[in-house]
């Protein structure tokens, strides 16, 4: 018998490449003085882990839960509620595509459609070759007068059209590197 394929619907659980010692060192900055404060720190700790690795694996979630005296179930409830978190790794390149009202008025719907038609990805998905992950921001990135706007590997790209989106993505992918080279914010 060959190896069984993973059951359908289980693709969210992947072999994690997250070094749990790094997670533990991140958690050193979160030292609650009591159980109430520990609960207040869960979201912030997860944000740091998510920012550093691009996602939070099940194993990392367990380490966070243990450090702050709660359960992995509680942590997963947060990871699956708040849109900023991912539970699967990002592709090599990572794009936050603003879909705020200004971007919508400027044509961001066409960009979302192009990502679907040409790149085969929708919000939160990664291309089959693992090169690109897109996260469509339902809120607003706040750079409205450069709409439609995105942040690609930590760099701002504004006044997007379907053509400039494709061109930018092709250029960034051809140049190699990854989202880890850019800084966020």
């Amino acid at each position, binding site marked *: 018998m060959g190896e069984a394929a993973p059951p359908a619907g289980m693709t969210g659980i992947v072999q994690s490449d997250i070094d749990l010692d790094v997670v533990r060192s991140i958690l050193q900055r979160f030292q609650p003085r009591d159980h109430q404060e520990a609960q207040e720190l869960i979201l912030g700790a997860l944000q740091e882990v998510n920012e550093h690795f691009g996602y939070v694996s099940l194993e990392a979630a367990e380490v966070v839960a243990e450090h702050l005296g709660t359960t992995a179930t509680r942590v997963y409830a947060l990871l699956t509620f708040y849109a900023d978190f991912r539970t699967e790794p990002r592709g090599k390149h990572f794009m936050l595509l603003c879909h705020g009202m200004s971007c919508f*008025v400027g044509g961001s719907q066409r960009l979302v459609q192009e990502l679907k038609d040409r790149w085969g990805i929708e919000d939160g998905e990664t291309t089959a070759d693992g090169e690109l992950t897109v996260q469509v921001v339902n809120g607003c990135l706040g750079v409205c007068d450069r709409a439609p706007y995105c942040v690609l590997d930590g760099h701002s790209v504004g006044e997007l059209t379907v053509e400039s989106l494709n061109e930018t993505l092709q250029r960034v992918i051809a140049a190699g590197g990854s989202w880890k080279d850019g800084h966020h914010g």
Partner: protein
Amino acid sequence: MESRLNSRADFEAFRARARERWNDLWEGDRMVASVGLDSSATPKGADKVLSACKAVAYDTGMIVREVSGNGATWMEPWVEVKRPGQPPIVYGPIDPDEVPALLAGRLESRAIGVRGDTAFGTIPPLSEIPFFKPQQRIVLQNAGIIDPGSIEDAIGRGAYDAYFKVLFEMSQEEAIAEVTTANVRGRGGAGFPAGIKWESGRKAKVTPKFVVCNSHEGEPNVYKDRRILESDPHRVLEGILIACISVGAERGYNYIGGEHPVAIARFRKAVADAERLGLIGRNVLGSGKDVFFRVRTGGGAYICGEGSALMYSIMGVRGMPRTKPPRSVEEGIWRRPTVANNTETMANIPSIILNGGAWYASIGTEKSKGTKLMTVQGPMQTPGLVEVPMGTTLRTLMEECWGGMKPGFTFKGIQTGGVSAGPLKEEHFDLPVDFDSLTEYGGMLGSGGFVVFDSTICAVDFARYLTAFNRVESCSKCVPCHRGNPALVEIVDRIRLGRGSMEDLALIERTSKHVIELSLCGLGQVAPMPLLGMMKQFPEEFRAHILDGVCPAGACPIDRRPARAAAAD
């Protein structure tokens, strides 16, 4: 590095030094270049402009300052240059490679205005140019002027004076009385008077009590709160600390949306600096009063802007609203009395304490006092963040502040109230903008975010976008919102595809009524408003999709010949 201030005298001495330092900066004989950096200017290259200024300063000994944006996004990146014997003059937009020419005085054509009261030669004061002229800046009085990372700058310009007054010269009742007299209504959108909330908080018997500032700002069309935090974080912090002292809360919180990293970083630094100076902690300035502070950040869930959801998020669970009563002022964070106000409300407090509630109440309209921050998005000539007296007309905002439509764009409508109200048209331009006047026409002031859309935008398609936003952001706790919003999107999609019927319009009305009347929280209760508003203002477009199978703006993916056209064959 300054050490902790332990007494009134320590603070007064520090303040005197900070004021002297501030005055010396502007009266000295050294050239000063200030570059505005924030989450709007930096993506346009303001950081590179700053580096270019520093490169010039390396040779010339010029002082280079990093300040925040001033709200006028159209002039970014901008540089303010103060030459000896001249007032500070603002230039923009400036490319990084133009900086040497600018600083050498060879780019005078790019001058926009003088920061000050009088013109310099042919350059007018900023306050006389159309973007600034209708404005009255209270909350934004330091925006683009101080370095938001410098507590010395802030104190040199009057920060913590009001806090000092509340700590040493006023009783809790007196402080709250000023806020009540000011009649400052909640700037988050609901418009509830802050003074009444504070008084309930002060009277609450259960301890400890908390104060929380709502800086979540998750709406897709507003960017005022993040700009307040980016430009003058100490003003917000001071407002929260005053609230803590006034209601007897032992701890203040600020909950900031995770999408605003610049605001988070600047506000965190402000808190750390205030803690270092002893403005937060035990026995503040020897007053015998303790006050502590925590910053918490959101994770991209719109619903967390709702008061009870925000508090659940702070407590480390899913941010889902609960039924009220009890109100949060009775049972909030950790089931203790919690006074919650929006960032802009908090930022008004220091000026109200310093100048008195009566002064504040003299600004604005009968029922909406003070100023209001307004933001605009869309194809305007001079877009940006403005602060105008309540009651300023839409026309003044649209035609003066924001300079009218960009060439080549035809005005169609202006969406108001974020995702919680409907659009207005040109016939509504003379309405005063305040908490109450727009409601009758299906609009809303809300948090002050406007979106101008032009003739290439289809009302049906835009309504679908706004409804789909609420569908995605529904927390799914209550059925009317969780099921109602997807149903509304489904119906609008039918119309967009040209497959709708006139009965669908009635179905939208019925479904909306369910969502509005039966949803648990304030966000669900207004979720259908944008769609209903679009139907009210642009009924002919909905009919054109249904009856003629045509999208007049050419935006919708019509895929079927309509019934009427087929019948005519």
